[in-house]
């Protein structure tokens, strides 16, 4: 069965309140795809807010938001990015690694694999969905913070919103209670930076 044969429209919903910042989702993701060091389909960002002794730590699991009318899809010079079943995915046979998609993404959720020279990003583990499995991140999430649902179930998540870094973004992946200030850690046109893991980036820039 091919993904396109399924009528389902998938959506990812991430409840940031539940996330404990354990990084299992992103390590499971890298293992799933044998991703090279320094490149990430998904990351969990940390942010400390407040002043001693009233300090909190917040987390944000962030990955491709499967945008509607996705900027990366339009930017692709090879028509290698397609939108099916609610998933924006890269056709590895068409991709030539030009990197135009990277420039288009407002959060940097896509990179070109330095070994294969093919663009890679979160595809909600379409290979798993098509055989009835959960994506690697959702499957391992100890706090059930990540869920894949069908579009028709969205009404259960009235408080979920798209995480935007540009006014024109149309994310279909939704976050519950994400802190918009986290956008400071993301740069349009640059893949997720490994430097986000460095502890010096935890505090809010003021």
């Amino acid at each position: 069965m091919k993904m396109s044969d399924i009528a389902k429209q998938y959506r990812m919903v991430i409840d940031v309140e539940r996330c404990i910042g354990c990084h299992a989702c992103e390590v499971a993701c890298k293992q799933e795809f044998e991703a090279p060091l320094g490149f990430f389909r998904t990351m969990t960002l940390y942010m400390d807010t407040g002043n001693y002794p009233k300090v909190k730590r917040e987390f944000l699991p962030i990955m491709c938001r499967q945008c509607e009318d996705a900027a990366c899809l339009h930017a692709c010079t090879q028509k290698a990015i397609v939108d099916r079943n609610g998933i924006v995915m890269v056709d590895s046979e068409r991709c030539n690694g030009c990197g135009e998609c990277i420039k288009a993404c407002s959060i940097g959720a896509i990179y070109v694999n330095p070994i294969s020279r093919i663009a890679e990003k979160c595809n909600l583990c379409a290979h798993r969905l098509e055989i009835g499995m959960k994506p690697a991140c959702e499957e391992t999430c100890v706090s059930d913070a990540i869920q894949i649902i069908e579009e028709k179930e969205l009404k259960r998540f009235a408080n979920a919103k798209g995480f935007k870094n540009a006014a024109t973004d149309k994310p279909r992946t939704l976050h519950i209670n994400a802190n918009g200030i986290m956008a400071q850690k993301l740069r349009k046109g640059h893949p997720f930076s490994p430097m986000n893991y460095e502890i010096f980036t935890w505090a809010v820039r003021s």
Partner: protein
Amino acid sequence: MMNRREFVKTTAVSMAALKIGGMISLSSDTYASAAVRERISLADTIESIEQIPTVCLNCSTVCGMIALVKEGLVLGVTGNPLDPNTNGKLCAKAHGGVSAINYPERLLYPLKRVGKRGDGLWQRITMDEAHQMVADRIKQTIESGYPERVVFHAGRNRIDDITNRFMDAIGSPVVLNHRALCSSNKRAANYISIGDTDWETVDAEYCSYFLNFGANFLEAHQGGFPMARRFVKAKANGAKMVTFDTRLSNTAGKSDEWLAPFPSSEGAIALAMAHTIMDKGVYDEAFIREWCNVSVEELKLFLAPYTPKFAAEASGLDANDIERIALEFASHAPACAAFTNRGSQAHQNGLNNDRAVIMLNAIVGSIGRKGGYAFGGSKSLGNASFPMVQPIPPKVKFSTDLEDPKEYPLANKWQKMKVSELVFEKIKNKTQPVEVYMSYTISAPQTWPEGPTVAVSALKDESVIPFHVCSDVVYSEMAHYADLILPDATYFERHTIEGRNANELIPYFVLRQPVVALTHDCLNFGDSLIRIGQKIGGKVSQYFAFDSYEVFIKGRLSSLPEREGLSGWEYMKKYGVWVDDKAKNYEPYRKKLSLQELENSFVENEIIYLLKNGKKEAIGRMVNGTALRGFKTPSRKFEIYSGDVQDAARKIGLEDDGFPHFVMPKSLKEIASDELVLTTFKWNVHTQARTAPQKYLSEIVHDNPVWINTQTARKYGIKNGDMVEITTYRPQSGFKASDKKMVVGRMSVHAFVTQGIHPRVIAISNSLGMNFGGRIPRAKNGKKQNIPAFSTEDHDDFKRYVWWDKRLGGAGNGVNPNSIIPINPSPLVGMQAWNDTVCSIRKIKA
């Protein structure tokens, strides 16, 4: 559906050669093909993946998992949904651990030292030669009449069924461990109070108020992962958590309230909370009357001096907060739990800190209750459930100063926790001569206080350790100082009967089994011991009359009943998890003793005894005319007062009235206004010493700057990233005590200036700053080191993409704070006081 299959086809060399299905033995050639592993991923093969249940061991929480295997390669792991603790969930470490199997710097052949010890010059030998060498050395030592000169030292040893058998068989009692570096005060506090378990099990799913004293269970605490899952559920249902920790851990950061007390004042806070609860009359009078070994009046008298004001002075916190939180906690009883970990127990006064916290549960009556401080539902993995294979060697009847130092009378009272932070000092002083030192899953130079100095100097010195054989998976900090290295199996390649405290309070166990065949000359250390035992011959070999550790484990499981028409062994191989058919073990102390249990018993002062080998052994107590199990303490009650502690203290000349009083350690009480306290902690993606070589984990955390509070940093003119020199001092009481500010060491490290730490505290994590173990833990791109036990294969990630390599502008691999953390065993138990180190700091030029 687009995937990378086409790409795989064009680049992978002769994948067909690998496709011989199931478990294959990787010869050098097929192992070489594993280099193309970066081209095969789970994503490409998920439809046809083979799923084999086994158990993680990347930390000691031992979560049930399913290995996802293709063509003899583990491509990933997923949680085993049948594991009642984890319900099919895994942490980052479990996923990251996969890379250990084909790590290019994994040890594949036995090595014999050829240069000076510690020079790193090696010759490859055969496993049979290596086993013979060890057997000859041990045989000689036995024949010399001093079998105790054979020392076994393990860290995360999960095969003590065979290692203890081996040591008993050769007649040496010197089995060393790392418990006093981990949890011995916490365990001792539980033994004293509830007498039952080595680890409490908060019934977290149903708990509505978490009162957390220094546990970082959302990141690091052993068994924390199953508790984290239940905590998130409870929180979604409205539960509250208050965390006392000097540092903003993820647990503190996710708490409803974080309060940072002065280090070691946790006991004062807990006692003041108890004081408040008693004072305001919100205690559980019936529980205290029926189950505690002191009366309400005695308790009030003991608590009288420990007012919120007293605790406020000791901790620096607000007395009103202490009072308010105490009353909130009590108002949630019995579905509330006060619990501890290294933040409270790793102090010189840690034993009483933990006893005071545990006592809070008794006062409000949450002990053993739904949503409360539960315990005792776990399966014992010992002889009772899984009988050892006959014949069983007799237990060694004597002890030595190495594993049983008499100056710490509670170290080995309940279980053999030992005081292992002292052993290298003792070995250096030849307190107990050593001939053969066997190390296994331990990295003392990395993880021991003063490890880089004291442990290394003992390990290097052939006059105090004439022969060191090390079993390890990577060329580790420990292996570097060995004379002989045995390449161990990873936890994906061996068997173990496993289990932890049962978070569902129903006994369960899990089976680790090999999911791929062993590669090259690697061998499970358990199998090495069997072969060495056979080679020693004489009386020793009779205890190793089986072919392998697998046969041994199979024998131990032979008493399991059939399930689903399968033998116990087959059932475990198929499902990996066994859950007993029992109810949740709430209030185990209220269990009635059966007539069978009461046979030949007698009652004195309401305590029920049996005579065992002429000794009285308490088995329960009479409550209103019924024989109940009670707590496994001497009084069969929850012990607030402890005669055991009083007696132990008397033995070493200490005054102690048996109550969990609060006394601030001398060093911290007399700390100068310009001095700080150095503490240490663990990350969610690392264990102490065994995860740094795993690329996807070290990619997330590879650097450990020193945490300094923003206000403190301002005083010293320190900004983020500035270099700071830390000077640490010997404690003013206990081991090597000195009032003269005796320097332990100095270390330069860059600063992380943060709001998330107490202004008098600085913190440097453990787990990093390694000297060995390959390019990942050393943060060095390029060619791998030339050790004749490595494969010839390599991988781009290690050659080119270690992005945190300093030479690429990265942060590097961090520091090991143990070079400046003094050996500091707490009194009575000997738990290392990790969080008591007084230090001074100054800004230095980069």
